[in-house]
């Protein structure tokens, strides 16, 4: 069946089977392969995307449920010129090893910092506890997210 939604600022229409998950649609129909699949049952968070501004697991949503929604994936949170402050912070803190969890981590962290730019380490850990990283042990990821907070604060509140 035909399906239309907005992805990374572009309106798209695709033909999907009703049983297709949103993550499969993004990855295999729209070739947005930055969103990863680590479990297909909602535990690992590798498939995290923004759906109407909220971080959600794209493996737990059917593509057809996204009709008319606004979706942002890691591709939409990136640009060619430079790393975003959050991405640069991940790199600086060595919060990336194999990179497989990274898009989901960055997307989840982006959603958190957009809402709560003053969150503390416990809050970061709580929110990221839904995203599994098998490589880093998380310490560096939490540091990276905390260090990127200032970029999410409104300019007037910055020193």
């Amino acid at each position, binding site marked *: 069946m035909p399906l239309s939604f907005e992805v990374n600022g572009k309106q798209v229409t695709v033909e999907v*089977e009703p*049983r*297709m998950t949103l993550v499969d649609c993004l*990855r*295999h129909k729209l*070739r947005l*392969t*930055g*969103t*990863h*699949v*680590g*479990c*297909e*049952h909602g*535990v*690992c968070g*590798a498939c995290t995307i923004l759906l109407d501004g909220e971080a959600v697991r794209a493996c737990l949503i059917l593509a057809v449920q996204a009709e008319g929604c606004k979706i942002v*994936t*890691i*591709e939409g949170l*990136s640009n060619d010129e430079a*790393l975003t402050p959050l*991405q640069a912070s*991940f*790199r*600086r803190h*060595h919060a*990336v*090893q*194999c*990179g*497989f*969890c*990274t*898009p989901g981590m*960055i997307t989840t962290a982006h959603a958190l910092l957009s809402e709560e730019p003053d969150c503390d*380490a416990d809050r*970061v*850990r*709580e929110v*990221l*506890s*839904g*995203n*599994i*990283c*098998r*490589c*880093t*042990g*998380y*310490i*560096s*990821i*939490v540091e990276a997210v905390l260090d990127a907070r200032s970029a999410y604060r409104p300019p007037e509140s910055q020193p």
Partner: protein
Amino acid sequence: MRNSFVGSPVERREDLRFVRGRGQYVDDLNPDGLLHAVILRSSFAHGRIRSIDASATVKLAGVHAVITARDMPGGPPRIPMRLQPLPEFMPFEQGVIADTKVRYVGEPIAVVVATSVAVGEDALDHIVVDIEPLPAVSDCETSAAGDRLLFEQQGANCAMTFTAECGDADAAFKAAAYVRREKFRTGRHFGLTLEPRGVMAEWDAATGRLTVSGAAKVPFFNRRVLAEQMGLPEDSIAMIENDVGGGFGARGEFYPEDFLIPFAARYTGRPVKWIEDRRENLMAMNHARQAQVEVEIACAHDGTILALRGHAHVDMGAYMRTNGAVAARNIAQFMAGPYRIPNIRVKSSLWMTNKTPVGTYRGPGRFETDFFRERLLDMVAKDLRLDRVELRRRNLIPASHMPYPLPAIAPFPASDEIDSGDYRATLDRCLEEFGWADKAKLAGKLIDGRFHGLAVGCFIEGGAAGPKETARLEINPDGSVAVFIGSSAVGQGVETVFAQIAADALEIPMDRISGVHHGSTAYVSDGYGAYHSRSVVMGGSALLDATKNLHNLIRTAAAKRFGCLPSEIKISEDGIVGPHGSSARFADFAGLTAEGAFLNKKHTYTFGAHAAHVTVDARIGRIEIIDYLAVTDCGRIINPMTVRGQVIGSLVQGLGGALLEDLKYDKDGQLLTGSLADYLLPSASDFPNLRAVVTEMFPSPINPLGAKGAGEGGIISAGGVVANAVANALGAFGVEPRELPLTPQRVWEMVEAGRLAT
């Protein structure tokens, strides 16, 4: 220019694509005409296959082929062992697909090739498999009883017993003043990677060439195996290493799918991709760790260890896989760890069971033995009323005894020695940095409803396995240099680390290293890959050799051009200079390429000490890590940032194995933990208080870099140290953990048993 990229925390090159979601993993590949494979796996742990009927399945719309053992002329090929390939193991090797029997839940029975994964999964339901169930062997005890045989013609379920020996253990025990005997067990867990495995194969019938994507870890070895199995010349197969979402020893070994998918591609004449789902992953990827041991230690009254004797039993699962013997072998050889024990005899028996076969997982055999040995040491200290730290310090191998020989192991003997280190100094560093003297006062104290416990433990980590690694350098048209290497990437940052080493060796800025190309079989003449913490040491040393060879080639070419002797040529960052003002640029020698190699029979040994402070809520069995410090001396450090990342990352995996991760089976050999909701992995909120200190006091004397393998140190001590800290906390209840993981239930049960006893 004297560079010093080596030793600097250089930010990683690969991150530029990973943080943007531009990594390319095997499931991201999508060539034209792609078909998808799904695999029918056995739901029985043990049974005889009576028949497989796929006649209805092949007729389904969208199904291109159903492949079973019958489609393989001469029967399904076996997967040979890569390490310790002893003839005794051959009858236990796994065929690529079940033929007459199934021996574990998850064993491949048929492959469906279809237009999509969904169509293929639907089709699986139409295959009619008739299996006569046989009683399952679900643990070592049942295996040893011998009345249920996995391989009837072998007459027994024991594949092998390794023995490690030095001195005369029996005589030492007879004469010893103090002896303690204990039994311990480690749970079954594994090197789960966040990216499940995957293979994509493309067959070009016109040229007879096969391209296999998704290769990792040991692509050159796997190519040899595949060529033999498919009846193809080796050089007609290209193995491509894409970005790899974690290795940990488990990914990249030759698995059944590494034959089945290329076979399916040739069978259908179309590109075929298979991506493991998580449920499959938990039952198909190599398991690890499950072992039980009966071990005895003999000491003098002052705590000097005189002898160690024991017998371990390792739950191997259903087949001997490529590196299946490594952990069992290491359990025998490394039981003594970093301690000087003059008399040792440790046996390790490999028992076949109806479970997923085992392979290596980071720190194979070492995580297990460190739990056994360090637990035993704390028990000895208690018995002899000695300080736990003092007991260890007294028995660590003294620096003056380096290099120190390891016990001899048989069969498949390999003489080995520990290369360098001052273990006492590193232990002291750990205690000081941890604040041991102060914290030790909390031992056993009950504060706010929680008991506090402390522990310290010491380990060695082998690395840098030979025999060889190859590297090649090539000058690009713009004068930059490309690096090609036989080492593989599994997420550890080799593109950055090799660029650092190459830039320093060539004495050029890092941005003139155009790229580091690794792992795929097309890049160098021969390669050995990424296992046993070897990539950097072996590949890096080969890179130094390639640099020397490239410089020689440049000198010869430049001498010819300038009409002078090669010895008159000077090479620097700015270019190539000859006598009388003659000069040239690197770009003038574009296309020059030189290979280099490093051969090595010895291993490097990284050493370290860990200290932990835990609390235990005795009412609910909950353990919290208040502080954990890992100190590692790993020889010359190439990139302190990535080494620290390796230590913390592997430490958290070790804590997972110590506290959470457990692959459970029932008596019928059914896997009970088939999802990430059942198999618990560490999450971001579990272990916030971890510290790592990495030092480089003792460069390895056996390679030109002076580096040592450093990928496993964090994991090795975790089980023993945490268990000792829990014992220390719950001393009031007489709790002595003898089994991992320390789940809340297990801890609570020990506390309750202690309450009853007192």
